[in-house]
């Protein structure tokens, strides 16, 4: 499969502030590529440069071989954007939102009509075609944003935190739709701070922090390489550390104390759990390692505003 998006030494600064600090990545045609990171990591800034609404400060960024310059109409014409903030046109009805977007993309009236009917079905909004935006639930609004992003039959979809503020049902419906698009061959770029979302959707991802890429890889393998298979959380006061660690000495596990919890990151944790039970500790949790552990390990456990 070919490469659709290439970035090298991609940088974005606002005055003294560096939002994106010289990153490199390649996104292949047909894959779902994730940008994972805390608030302010530079994810949104990066994707905004990809879809040509934010100028690149320095470095090279191309989409389908074209330079991702501000207002590059060719790139915009082949891209669908699902924004983080719901920016539907509240003065217009559901259907009119799609009609006017079709105009923006130079889609002829007859063609637009057919596509809109199809997209309303895809987004399960047929019954709401003539509704005002204010009459929609958040989940419906998010689905309409997806439908709107598909009006130009995009080769590339940029989804910037597409499930923010949704309940589980609505979130899973959005994920299904996004996977459906990927299966049809559309390239997907996803930014998210939900680890589960990244694991559900992404073929490959990068973890960003403070404008840099900390790690790149396939979600499952990243977890195994960075953390292992299992995590054991032992909630004990720090005074117990010596006793617990002594009991664990025979196992090749990394450990870390954070606040009230002692974490063990292990390749193989079964015998370990048995050993811990002997200590008769009141509160231990044994669970599979997740992307969240990788994320916290790489970005540190402090609060990122």
């Amino acid at each position: 499969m070919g490469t659709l998006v290439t970035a090298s030494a991609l940088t974005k600064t606002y005055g003294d502030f560096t939002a994106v600090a010289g990153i490199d990545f390649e996104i292949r045609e047909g894959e779902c590529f994730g940008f994972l990171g805390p608030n302010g990591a530079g994810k949104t800034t990066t994707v905004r440069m990809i879809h040509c609404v934010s100028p690149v400060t320095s470095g090279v960024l191309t989409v389908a071989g074209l330079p991702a310059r501000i207002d590059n109409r060719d790139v915009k014409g082949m891209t669908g954007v699902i924004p983080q903030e719901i920016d539907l046109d509240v003065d217009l009805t559901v259907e009119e939102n799609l009609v006017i977007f079709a105009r923006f993309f130079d889609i002829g009236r007859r063609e637009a009509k057919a596509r809109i009917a199809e997209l309303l079905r895809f987004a399960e909004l047929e019954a709401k075609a003539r509704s005002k935006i204010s009459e929609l639930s958040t989940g419906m609004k998010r689905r309409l944003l997806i439908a709107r992003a598909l009006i130009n039959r995009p080769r590339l979809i940029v989804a910037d935190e597409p499930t923010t503020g949704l309940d589980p049902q609505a979130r899973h419906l959005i994920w299904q739709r996004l996977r459906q698009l990927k299966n049809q061959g559309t390239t997907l770029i996803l930014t998210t701070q939900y680890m589960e979302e990244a694991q559900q959707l992404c073929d490959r991802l990068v973890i960003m922090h403070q404008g840099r890429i900390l790690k790149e890889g396939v979600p499952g393998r990243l977890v195994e390489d960075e953390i292992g298979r299992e995590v054991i959380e032992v909630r004990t006061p720090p005074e117990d550390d010596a006793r617990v660690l002594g009991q664990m000495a025979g196992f090749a596990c990394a450990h870390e104390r954070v606040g009230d919890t002692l974490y063990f990151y292990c390749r193989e944790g079964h015998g370990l759990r048995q050993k811990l039970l002997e200590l008769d500790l009141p509160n231990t949790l044994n669970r599979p390692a997740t992307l969240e552990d990788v994320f916290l390990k790489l970005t540190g456990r402090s609060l990122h505003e």
Partner: protein
Amino acid sequence: MSLSYRIAYVFLRNLYSYKRFVVPTFLVSLVEPLFYLITFGVGMGAYMGAFGGQPYLHFLVPGVLASASMMSASFECLYGTFVKIVHEKVYDSLITTPVSADEAVAGDIAWGSFRGLISGVLMMVVAVFMGVAPAAPWRALALVVFMIFIGLLFGSLAMIVTSISPSFDFFSYYTELIITPMLFFSGVFFPLDHFPAWMKGLAEALPLTHAVVLSRALFTGQPAPGWGWRIAYLAVLAAAAFAVSIRMMRKRLIK
């Protein structure tokens, strides 16, 4: 500048949205001229007797045509555009499509001009019913073209204010300190002949003064002194304001 036929799409978007506000805005656009023409024209005019050989209303109407276009275009490009940028986020979604930010702004200025035209035309219709009509039917058409131009000029000027406005409150500076005073210094309600020299000089710098003189000439058929340079002044100002407003709005929209 990145401008193309796509400006029309932005205009179209505004037309779609306008459908829901047609009745209230028509009412406002009708009540405003009636207010001016009845209070000033009929009420005050009764005390003024003949005004250059004609009832005062004949003097008033062409001036108010120009000022009504100015007002509507200005308000649309101040409040209307601000709401679309800050509250409704219309621009955010628009610039992700092949439509450029420049085209979005130009489309909104065109839209402001259109709103100004609606106000002016409604005013003209009301005036005709009150017995004040352009000197010849073709002059009504010429006035339509002129009002479109007035709208582009004042829409662009307002757009510059919008480009730097942090909030609604900021617009008061422009409307209260510039637009409203201009209304009284530009010969809309009375001729400027009796102004002292410095006030005349001030008035000559105001674009509305020239718009009013030209509107009156178009309406009545009496030639305006210095119409050539007045048109040139307004045209240059409009072109400059348009270019500056687009540049400044781009700064606001593209980060």
